[in-house]
């Protein structure tokens, strides 16, 4: 069984602060020493996918809709406005959006594409 030591107490208060410098870029202690192994890696994976769609690395969370896998075009919907919403509100917001005029407009556009 793999085990690891917890962060020293003095670092607990700044674990999310960008204080560790690696070749000019700042990282938080959580980036490098967090218990969630994928936390650091996950962002990199998302960025790899976004880069392939020619989208900025910070444009997540998002939806990318497409009509057919063989198409070369799709539709991007940024979800930044929904960040940090409580789960219940997030559900309501998404339900409203999928049932609302904006999504209907998107569907109409996909049909005409």
């Amino acid at each position, binding site marked *: 069984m*793999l085990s690891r030591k917890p962060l020293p107490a003095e670092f607990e208060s700044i674990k999310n602060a960008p204080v560790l410098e*690696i070749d000019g870029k700042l990282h938080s202690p959580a*980036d490098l020493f967090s218990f969630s192994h994928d936390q650091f890696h996950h962002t990199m994976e998302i960025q790899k996918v976004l880069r392939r769609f020619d989208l900025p690395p910070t444009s997540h969370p998002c939806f990318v809709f497409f009509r057919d896998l063989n198409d070369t075009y799709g539709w*991007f919907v940024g979800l930044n406005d929904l960040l940090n919403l409580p789960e219940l509100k997030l559900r309501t917001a998404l339900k409203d959006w999928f049932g609302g005029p904006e999504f209907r*407009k998107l569907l109409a556009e996909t049909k005409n594409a």
Partner: protein
Amino acid sequence: MLNFSPIKTKSGTIRDVLLSARDAMLPEILANDPLAKWILSSDLLQTPIPRHGLQGGEPSRPQSPLRDGHDGTEVRRWKPEGEGKEYFKPSPYDVLAHIVVEEATNFYFACLFHLGRVLASADARLDAIQRLLDPRNLESSAARVGGLLEIDTNLIRLSLHGMCSSESEYQSARRRFALDCWQVWREKVFRLQALLGSSAEDSVLASEVGAGVCFVICSRDKGSLLERMGPDQTLFSAMPSPSVSQRLQVVASFHADFVEAFSTTAYWQLVTDSARKFDEHFPAIPDPKRPSIQERKWDGAAPKDFVSEMYKYKLPKSQLAKPRYTPFYPLADIRMLMCKMTKLFIVNGSKPPIWPAAKHEAKRAWVANALFRAEVDAEFLINNFAEQLLRFSAEVSERPGFRFPFADSEWNAYLDSFFNMWWVPNLRHQLNRVDQERFDTLVLAAARLLSTMGYSVHAASEAKVPPGAGEKRDSDQFPKGFDVP
């Protein structure tokens, strides 16, 4: 307010982009591995999906291990009626093989990405920590943290050193563990691939199977092939371009002949000896239903009815008559002995006595054996369906005037009837309605698997199940009212 904006890919289609992103997530060691490529080829992303679903879509070049001819030739697939092309006629063995392999492939597909992520994240952490320990980076980081916490920079530097050392040790262990898992993964996938004979020439497993087929061929051609094919040559090197169906049917006939050999006294002596060795090797297997070798008494005579004994083995203990001798062993024993026995027969060049009644059981044994090898845990979904399908095929084919459904539409109607009228009610009976969720899951999973292979079956609703069909399960009787198309 969520707004949408159109985007356009510059590097190919959406499919290309997603495939390229998928491949980029795997570390090189995994991405370049031939076995990983084989598993990745089952990704539905690589199979063009028709715009209007399976029914109306254009037939496409199959690319996955489940859809490919393993010799690189295209496997003809089922196509809806009326489209006028000759297509591959699926046999029950195709159905079974596809179910077995697809279940396992999905599992190993997910495992591959999990291992890839563990390896990649461990590597990324190790690299970042290594760079943080660079004196320049360490100095500036310590100064920044020290300033924020108002602690002496030297103490912070020491603390960072300790953290990096501990994290490095941990990530290295994670990496080693992932690499160990990767080796296990490769071994399992190698065996799975060998099960289908994809790499028969260099596969130990395929060599076992191939040796068995050599035996079958030898016994049918009076040993003429024996002189030309040594026991180390495999079936698939002997057959230039066998389809999955051909492979499995030949393997199944091998097992039929193999079980026929069970009726010889010499064979039983050998089985008993080997089973004893098996028990000595694996003494700790706790299975109350399986008597220890000391309790098994063998009187030296060949069992008169091996098949019925095998069926007794499956009945509840209360219904199981105490056997006078020990004619049955778990399939695992049989599996273990198979290669040895086969080679023995090859060397002797002897033909076992014909025992047609054993053929069905042998086929069932093959299916269970395949499952055992593939380590697929879906007893009702696969083993039961497999058994019923084979039993049913054997039963109806003996009816006077029966004509096996050769046309695609007939076959699908046949399979559909079988699925809904026989397997579903039986499954319902076996689950005894105590686990409705499991029942639904299994039926839907089976329907989905068959559909992905091109079989147009659908899960029966409550209303479609004939009254009383699932109330009684009699191994020898099919439900009344069922008729073949």
